[in-house]
Structure formats: structure tokens, C-alpha cells
């Protein structure tokens, strides 16, 4: 870990402005991912802005029947919130499928969205990695890639986004609210928030330097059955091989987002349209452009089978 300066932010606006004025600044809230990355010198900020004192830790109804979740609401609190559990069960279940109780107590809503990949080559600074060191190459594509992406991948990167929460937010069509360094407020649909790797896998979201997430807004509840099915080698405390987040109505229509397959929560609206026809047609659309490796080809079959089980569960 390299030496850094540290400040406690007093207002959102000053936090954003300060972050924009320091060239290598990170906001820190729970720090559950950032601190590990700093110890390994994968993240080397020269300045940290602690945003824990900014409030933003409430969950409130919006005028149009939705829910605004503060950026600093802890994962544990969000998962346990009565309204979330009743109206957005998918979100609660996705949160509880992730990490451990201790981590969820610290981890925040905004921080969860900004997690870095768990690609093992990203974590080993001796190995080439375009995400860690742009232009150095990708060790994973021809290396150990069992956990990695199959769709939306590029020749530069096949990393996946590790969040469970983000899969639920994608299925629920959440909107990420931010403040730009100049003080303007901005809203980004979750679909556009994370980027595909392309030739710039080190740029993971559409956030500008200094842009600060203030919260996440959920639209009015969708009803239907909310199912989050995370598939992994051990029963707990593991990142998803794949996961399926679904909201399925009694008529068989619905929406699905899939985790563990791409650089962002993976949802294809045309696959939602195919959902009433069953798991096979829906998966065919969802993963139409899949480019798996030899190690992770099984994920295509796994998504289809898991989705089949999810659809059956929704019916039952």
C-alpha cells in the first residue's frame, strides 16, 4: 500500500469537487474491496475521501411509488428493509446471497456497484492484465478462465462484474443518481452505468473523475415472483459461477438479468420477450453472441438450466 492523504468529506458537493481536483482520488465508504486492492497496489490512490459522514443512509419512498436508496445504506440494512423485502424481494435475496454478514455490515450500496472484478490475474500484479495495466495484455483469455465472462467480452478482457446486488438492480431497472464535480445532478439508468470492456477494460463505469453516487432509485414495484438463484461451487461465501435474477409474473412474462457472465449485469430485453417460451429460447437470445473459453463454456448450459429451474419455481 502506498502512502496517501485522507480527508473526511463534510458535504457531497465538496467531496465531488475535492475528488475532481486531486488527480488520483478514491472515495471510501465500507472499503471492503478498495482496501484489499490498495494493499496489493492494484489501486494506488494518492488521496482518499471518506464519505461515511455524509448521511445518504436512508431508504425513502419516491413520489411515483418507487424507492430511493441512499448511497451509504449498508447492504445488511438494505436487505433487511421491510419495503425492500416486501416489494423488491429480488434485491433483498441478491444481497443476502453475496459476501458474508460481516462484509454486508460494512459494504454500501454505491460501493457494491463499484466493486472491481475478481479475475485472479487482475489480483496478481506479476501477470499482464489490461484492466490493471492498460496495454499489458490479458492473461486470462488463454489462462485459467473458469470463473470469467462468456458474453460481451473483448480480446482485451473477459473479466466479470462480481456483484449480486447489481443483478437485481438491473432486472429492476434501477437508476443511479450522481453529483458531478461541478455540482450538477445526474441520473444514469443501471443499464448504462457499467461498460463493456472493449479496448478499455480499465474504464468500468460511465462515472467521471470526481462524480459521486448519491443513491439508487427503484421504479414502482413490479409485483410478480422475485427469484435470485446464485450458482456456486460451495454453499456460501463464493462469487457466482452464474446467477439469475428474475421477476416473473403469473402469466409467464417477466425480466431476467444474469450475473457471472459479463463485465456488467447482463440483461437483453429481447430475451425477456422470449421468456414465456421457456428457458431455452430465452437463453438463446440472452447469450446469442457468447464467446466462451474452453474453461467456461459450461456456463451457457448452466444459465439455461438455471433459468429453467427459476421459471419452474415461479410457476410453482
Amino acid at each position, binding site marked *: *500500500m*502506498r*502512502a496517501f492523504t485522507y480527508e473526511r468529506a463534510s458535504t457531497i458537493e465538496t467531496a465531488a469537487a475535492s475528488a475532481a481536483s486531486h488527480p488520483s482520488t478514491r472515495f471510501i465508504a465500507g472499503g471492503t474491496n478498495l482496501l484489499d486492492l490498495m*494493499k496489493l*497496489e492494484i489501486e494506488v490512490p494518492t488521496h482518499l475521501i471518506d464519505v461515511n459522514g455524509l448521511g445518504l443512509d436512508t431508504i425513502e419512498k419516491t413520489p411515483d411509488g418507487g424507492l430511493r436508496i441512499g448511497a451509504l445504506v449498508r447492504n445488511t440494512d438494505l436487505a433487511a428493509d421491510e419495503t425492500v423485502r416486501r416489494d423488491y424481494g429480488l434485491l433483498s435475496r441478491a444481497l443476502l446471497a453475496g459476501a458474508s454478514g460481516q462484509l454486508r455490515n460494512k459494504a454500501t450500496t454505491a460501493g457494491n456497484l463499484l466493486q472491481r472484478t*475478481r479475475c*485472479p*490475474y487482475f*489480483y*496478481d500484479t*506479476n*501477470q499482464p492484465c489490461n484492466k490493471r495495466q492498460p496495454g499489458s495484455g490479458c*492473461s486470462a483469455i*488463454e*489462462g*485459467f478462465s*473458469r470463473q470469467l465472462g462468456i458474453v460481451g467480452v473483448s480480446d482485451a478482457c473477459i473479466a466479470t462484474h462480481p456483484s449480486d446486488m447489481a443483478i437485481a438492480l438491473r432486472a429492476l431497472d434501477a437508476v443511479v443518481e450522481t453529483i458531478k464535480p461541478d455540482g450538477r445532478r445526474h441520473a444514469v439508468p443501471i443499464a448504462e452505468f457499467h461498460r463493456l470492456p472493449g479496448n478499455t477494460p480499465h474504464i468500468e463505469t460511465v462515472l467521471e473523475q470526481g462524480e459521486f453516487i448519491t443513491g439508487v432509485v427503484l421504479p414502482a414495484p413490479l409485483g410478480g415472483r422475485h427469484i435470485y*438463484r446464485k*450458482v*456456486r*461451487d*460451495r*454453499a*456460501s*461465501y*463464493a*462469487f457466482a*459461477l452464474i446467477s439469475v435474477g428474475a421477476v416473473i409474473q403469473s402469466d409467464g412474462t417477466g425480466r431476467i438479468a444474469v450475473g457471472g457472465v459479463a463485465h456488467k449485469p447482463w440483461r437483453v430485453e429481447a430475451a425477456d420477450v422470449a421468456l414465456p417460451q*421457456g*428457458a*431455452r429460447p430465452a437463453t438463446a437470445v440472452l447469450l446469442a453472441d457468447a464467446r466462451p473459453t474452453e474453461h467456461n463454456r*459450461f456456463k451457457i*448450459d*448452466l444459465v*439455461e*438450466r*438455471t433459468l*429453467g*429451474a427459476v421459471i*419452474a419455481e415461479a410457476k410453482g
Partner: protein
Amino acid sequence: MKFDTPATTNPIDQMKVVGKPIPRIDGDLKVTGRAKYAYEWHDASTPYAYGYPVGASIARGRIRSMDIAAAEKAPGVLAVVTTLAVGERKKGKFNTAKLFGGDEVQHYHQAIAVVVAENFEQARAAAALVKVDYAEEKGAFDLKEAMKTAEKPADSQQPDTSVGDFDATFGSAAITLDEAYSTPDQSHAMMEPNASIAAWDGDNVTVWTSSQMIDWWRADLATTLDIDKEKIHLMSPFIGGGFGGKLFLRSDAVLAVLGAQAAKRPVKVALPRPFMINNTTHRPATIQRIRIGAERDGKITAIAHESWSGDQPGGQLEAAVAQTRLLYAGANRMTAMRLATLNLPEGNAMRAPGEAPGLMALEIAMDEMAEKLGLDPIEFRILNDTQVDPEKPERPFSHRNLIGCLKLGAETFGWSSRGKPGARREGNWLIGQGVAVAFRNNMMLPSGARVRLDRQGIATVETDMTDIGTGSYTIIAQTAAEMLGLPMDRVAVQLGDSRFPVSAGSGGQFGANSSTSGVYAACVKLREAVAAKLGFNSDDVVFENGEVRSGNRSVPLTEAVGDEGLVGEDTMTWGDLTQTHQQSTFGAHFVEVGVDVATGESRVRRMLAVCAAGRILNPITARSQVIGAMTMGVGGALSEELAVDTRRGFFVNHDLAGYEVAVHADIPHQDVIFMDETDPMSSPMKAKGVGELGLCGVSAAIANAIYNASGVRVRHYPLTLDKLIGNLPDVA
């Protein structure tokens, strides 16, 4: 004392303390954080400095140069010691790859420098500034490729065995099996990392470390650093797990000693978690072939087990065929092992080396063979039980009740309810049951102890034996209490210090039986000293309730020992009973699993182990050993695999997020039953080891249960869902 004739009745047989379910005496210290582990020794007046290791970033080659200028100038840095500056060193007797010194890189993350600074963060930051110029060389990293040129190692490793005519008998057998199996590289993944503190005082050095084998470490540290062994004081009183990963001297101790010398300060070094996987040792992967031929009635007539593993040049086989030489009858048999050269980190002992991966394959093969024969897998095993060494029928087992384990286990577990493969379903879960045999040889090593009895009537046992979480403190106290007729609270135990008599140490499940036998021997000496002092005939003297009695004379121990106290010291050595009799431990593992019909995720639902391992010295600590081992077997069956990058030559998933050991949610209900038995051939304790037995066969029982649940036979570990889903029923 030399144990060379079967044990007769002795004071241990009273079983007033030995054999009782006594909670571990160091438990309070551990759960309150007062048990000091290696890195935690902290004397407020000592100005500790902190060392952080630098590991090689290539797998094989030479170091042309190292630039440490930036590291030396970094804040807080006291010293930078490089492998080039230290130069070539002798290697310890027990190390295959060198730990430090010289320009040769033999594997990824081999230690090439230690940076010492005022605090840990400064040392870590400065370590990242060390620049290295390598001349990288090609290496062999893929066992599947390297096995083609694998060689037969020295006869001392027993690569080939043969009895009768395997080929002819197998060729004409009515029912045959010929299958290939594989087990992956596995990591010990113990909770406490390898860690040491070194402090010099003149030309004497004290090392607090985490070592299973005090004397081996001390001798190898002396060799590696060219220090007089007598000038090294090594202490390792508490160890946060080892599983074989702390049997042999590791780089943390070497770096701490060199760092302390350079910085002229006591230095702490802990290996970072990724170093645990690529800097230290691991259980090597195996590729195995098993052939079994049997008559239609189920009698095995021919059995062959071959295994290929790899290691660094000069390394050793993973003896995966060891159990097959002894476990089942059959007149015609052969085993063969070949060793490939690999430039991956050093392969070496991990809990039940040999038998653990060997049984992972053999016990699937037995399940498959039973099915071919139309026999219940338990019936098939009972049919082929042997009471003698099948290679030398004149050599009996000292005591073998494998059949009892299988029968009691079947009854307790409800084995009769097991259905045909793929037949039982509950919702999305395919349910199945599996069984496998546990087998591990019983080894003994010489073990010494000293027992002091003071005028307060407190007995203090001193031995360099270690407690790696196994319960050594407790069973040693029980042994001394039994021998001296004292309650447990009158016995103190001090372990893991090179000033104490050399013991067996912890490994190979030899620790409990060997070390308590050493304490037994020391107590016999002490009893003789007490008797002599009182003028009693030591043959009929009784130690009971804090008194010494002979005939109608009775003297309190406190009075007997007097103001000066008395000491007994001895070392238990072993005769040839292990040559005349095959000594082994036995068990049966029963497992019920659910396999998710859609995803192929396998989850264990319940487990039972029935163990026959001689006298159980303490059913609580023994049970802990076995359930821990069963847990390790779940990880080994379902998720643990060091993923090899065969281009760059290293284990990629080098942390506990990537190397998935079983977690609480993976372990539902575990039961353990110990057969009520003694083995007078093993020692005066009549005990044998259980710590490795508990692991042997577990993974195969799970594999067999998965087959019974799903109808899918997987012969390559770990049994992850990708190996199942292609063959599971359609769910769409």
C-alpha cells in the same frame, strides 16, 4: 524405553483419566485470545521490526540483477536482504526446493528478498519497489504432458511392487475394471499463515515460529544458515493449523533470522496468503490408473494401481498406491508409481499423503466394481477383507476391524434405504448415498519427554511436541495424570520448545500415540525415582489420588518428592513390531448428498465416520480431529483445486477467495463413532492415530454418493458442477 514386545497391563489401562472426554486444557487460552501464536509474541519493551517477503515473479530461470535502491530509501526501511547478496546456501534435509539464497529461481513466488522496516505497512510498500531482472527459462508445468517422460524414482520410494501374475489373471478374470482417475494439486490452506519472529543475542538466535516439528526445523535452519544448531532456540507453543504445511522449515523463519541479523533488531515475518500457495508446499496432483479383476462371486483375483505425480527435480512421489498394497485381498497384484519433473512449487506432505489421493481413486473404483458385480459396495468390501498383508500372508495385521466399521456404519446410517442410481428425488434435489473405506497406516517416531514433580505435587511435562490444534496438550496431561495418580489440575504441560526433549512432533498421525508414549516412558522413570526414594519395590507401587502406595504403606506424593522435587526423563523408541505386524487404522465413511438437478451443485446432507484406531485417548479431541478431516474431505471432493497456469507455471487461485475450502454452510450434520478397541502392538498407550484416518476415503464416499444420486460417474476431482450438468436430466 524401547517398545519391542506387545503391551501388557499397565497403569494406562486404569482409564481413570485417559480415554475420558476432557475438554482441551488450552481451550480457555485459545477462545480468549491469550494463546500466543508465532507472530503474536509481543514484549512491549522489544523494538520489533517487520519483514515483508518479495517473491519471484517467474516460475523458472535466473536473476540477473536486483535493484533495491528505491526500497532502501523508502520510509522506515531498515534493511533489504536479497537472495543474491546472501548467495548460495545449503539446503535443509527436508526441503526439495531451496528456500532462499543464490540466483536460481526454481518456482513462482520463491523468496528472493526480505524488506525490513519499522512497521509492517512500510515494509510491504518498500517490498513493492524492488526491481528484478530475470533470465526466464522454459519449464514443465503440466502433469498430463510431463507424465509422458516421467521416470521411475529410487527404490527407496518403492515405485514398483508385484506379487503373483497380475497381467495373466486380470486378462482372464470374469469381471474387470480398468479406469483412469485424477486428483488435483491441493493446498493446506491452514488458517494461521507461516510466520516467525527472530531475535539475535550475540551469536545466539531465538525463533518463535509455527512449526509442527521443532527439531527438524532447528536442524534445517542450522544447515540453511550455517549456524550451530545449539545456538538456535526455537519455540512454537501454539499453531493455528498445519496439515503438513509446517512439517518442514519454511522461508518465513529463514527470512526472519536473516532480516534480524541485517536490521540488528528482532524481526517479524509472516507469509502473505498468496505465498502460502506458491511459496510453500502443496499436495501434488495425481493421475491414476486402477485395474481390478474378480470372479463372478466377487472375490478379487487381480488388482493393480498405478500413479503419476510430479515434483521439482530431486523431489518425491505422492505415494497414492500405498493403501492398495494392503487394503484388499487378491493373490495377483501390482503397483507402480512414476515421477515427472515439474517446475511448479514443491509438492510435499499434506494430511494423509499417499492414502488421501489414493483412496479418492481406489474407493471410487471399488464402488464401480461392486456395481459391475451386482454386489452391494459394503458386501463387496467385506468379501475382500484380509487379516494379513496380502503381499506377505505370513505377516498379520496387529488388529483390523474394518468389517466392524462397515457393519456398524451401515446400520447407524440407514444404508439399507439407499436406492438405485438416480432413483431418489426430493424437489430439485437428487438424493444419493455413498460409502468408502478409510485406511491409514500407523507410524511411530521416537519421542522424548521430561516430567518434573514438585513439592506442591504439581507434575510439569516438558517435551518439544507440538499441538497443531489436535489436542496434544490435553492428551499429554491425561497421560501424566494417569501415570502419576494425579487429577488433571495437578498437571501442567509445556510444549513446542527446543530446550525440551525431542519428541515425535505432529505429522503422519503419529503424534498422539508417539508423544504420549514418550510421556509414559518419562513417567515410568519418575515413578521409579519416587519408589527408589521411598525404598518401595517399584513393581508393586501404586500411584493413586496423589499418593504412592506399596503394600500397606502409603505416602503423599508431595512428601515423597520432598523439597527438591523429582524428575523423570526418557525417550520412547520402537522395536520391530511394525515389521512383524502390519499396523494400520481403519474406518468407514458414509455420506448422503443432494445434487441439484438443474445446476449440478452437489451439497452434503449428512456424514458418518466409524473409526477403528486403537484406544481413543480423548473422545472429544479425537472427534474434533475426525470431523475436521471430514470437512477437509468435503472441500477436496467438491471444490478444492489449485488451478495451474500451464504457460506461466504457477497456481492462479492463490488466495482463500479463489481456493475454495468448505465453509460452514457446506457442512451439515456430522457423526463420528469410535470402535471400542485397543491395539497392544502399537504402544503402551495401545492407541493409534486418527487425524489422517478421518480424511481418508471421505472424498470418494462423496463421489460415490453423487453417482448414487445422479447416475453420473465422475472420476476426476473436484466434482464440480461442470462435470455433471452435461449428463443430468433435462429440466427445460
